[in-house]
């Protein structure tokens, strides 16, 4: 039935019951993920982001919130060009992190 409006599903994340395997594995191999300040420089320069919703900042947030399926879908867009790594003010090796997530 069409009421002319709809309710969006709740985006509430239950932090106690989410699956953080990927993020925890990532933290072990790449401790520098912890130093991200979510400034968004990576997103602003992203080559794939020009055509899609690819954003490393959001990707990291998704993994922190246990939204692995969404993260995996997003990471497929990446072209690995490495601009994000170059502009990162924290010197995070983003390209390595992106590769590590996919394997």
């Amino acid at each position, binding site marked *: 039935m069409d009421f002319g409006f709809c309710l969006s599903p709740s985006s509430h994340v239950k932090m106690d019951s989410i699956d953080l395997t990927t993020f925890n594995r990532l933290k072990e191999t790449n401790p520098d993920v912890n130093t991200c300040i979510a400034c968004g420089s990576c997103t602003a320069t992203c080559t794939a982001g020009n055509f899609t919703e690819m954003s490393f900042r959001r990707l990291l947030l998704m993994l922190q919130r246990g939204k692995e399926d969404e993260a995996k879908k997003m990471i*497929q*867009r990446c*072209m690995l060009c490495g601009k994000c790594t*170059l502009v990162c003010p924290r010197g995070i090796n983003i390209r*390595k992190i992106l590769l590590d*997530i996919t394997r």
Partner: protein
Amino acid sequence: MNQYIFHPFVLPFVLGMAFVLTYCLVGLFRIIGQLPKDDRKKFWRSLVTPKTAWANIRDLFGDCLFHVKIWKRNPILGYMHSAIAFGWFMIIVIGHVMLFTLKPLQDVDVHGFARTFTNFYYPIFYKHFAEETPVFAFLMDFFLIVIITGIFIAVVKKIYSGVVGVKRVTKFGFADNMIRFALWTIFPFRLIAEKTNIMAFWWLYSIDLMIFMCMLPFTRYMHIPTEALFILLRHAGLKPREPRKGYALAQIYSCPSCGLCIDACPMSVNDKNSGNTSAYFMKKLRNANDAEAKRIAETCMQCGKCVAVCPVSIESCDIKMSQREATPYIINSDHSYLENVESSSSVNSTVLYFAGCMTQLTPKIMRSMKKIMEAAGENYEFLDKDGGICCGRPMMLSGKKSEAQAMIEKNTELIKKSGAKKLVLSCPICYKVFKEEYKLEGIEIQHHTQYINELIKNGKLKVSKGDVNYVYHDPCELGRAFGVYDEPREVLENVGNLRKAKSEKELSICCGGSLGSFNLTQQERDEITANSVDDLMYNHPDEIVTACPLCLKTFSKKSPVQVKDIAEIVSEKI
């Protein structure tokens, strides 16, 4: 004459020789058997093609016998290696020639197999069995002394490598150290045995030879027999497909672990990273240490300097790439969204300019190129004005060759649609992949250094000469990969004075920003950058000039003087 009678001390040598020959024969069949079918066909064909056959002969003599490349790299090491290897070769040859000048076997009646068997060890121990002829005796003694001088240098190098101009040497395990000791003692033993004729020394000499030959297949000295095969395979134009099979295996066995790549590697600036150099990578592969080989392959910056200095021309970068390609990924890329991308550029221009991702981060290069092309009156168009598609090289560097295809195909489509006759690139990273992987028939691909040089030479672009002192940094993927050394230097000489860096052209040091490496941390990269900047500042230039947006960005952080792209310099001088 009883001297001809068989003596058991020759047995260790004969055993060792039989072992090493069998091993090499089996290895030869194994390597050729492991080659993919089309590669094998290519290999057989290259053996009979006059051009490659000639190259084979030239390099077999030049590299295996006269060691030309080591002489070029470092004359002292060249002498050391030639003294031992060429000296030994000459002794064996002269020994065999001398066989004919000696009287045939007289008192003892030896025929058939026994005679062949005798001839096998005869030239090695002739002095125990017969009188030598004077001229040959002199030659033999001369080469023996030459070998011993070579060994003397080798011993000095072992104690203090700085004397021969080598900072870091490869660290060896037990087997490599032991065979080296065996090699060093073979010739003194031979000299003493010949001069004193004491039986004990003949035994020692023979046993030493056996140790050397029995250990040879398991140590770095395997490069002696394998290099010949490697030269033939290399000239056939093969590429390693798997990191430890076929062609790559021939390269692994051909690596002499000489360690020239250790000093050359930009990563060696940090001692901790000198273990990540090609010499160790080849060792890990040989020892089937896959985890370490994978780690080193992924740490390497792919600058290609180790390949440039390698006296055996081992293509370690290609093997590292095949190692990366062997790494499985769980999530594969999906670039289907590229299909709907439309070109923002209009059709009907003669020159198409593709800035590339890295140049998007350094817009001053784009602005300069625009100014230059306008000043030259060129009919140009920008392919990626508002951000284009990545060229695919970074994807390939990550070992995802097939996944780069989506980008390569889309870019090819966009470029062909534009109808341009010339494609100008600002980024050497793009330049490499466009040259190697793109199929752009009828379109000339140029890096902007070549393009600007052409404009100046044609008289289309007028520049004024200033009095600023420049030093030019050769980007790895432009210099070592394609030999574009002269064009940028010619351009710079037109606009100012060119000073030399300490290491130039094929020896130029990577800026440290390379996309090739996954593992290097920012600090490690900064150390490499600082070292590279020091090298460029050797002759106190006023400005550092480079031709790669990535080098520009990397150097700018660490340089005491201003860093500029060659396009910027030229656009200032219009």
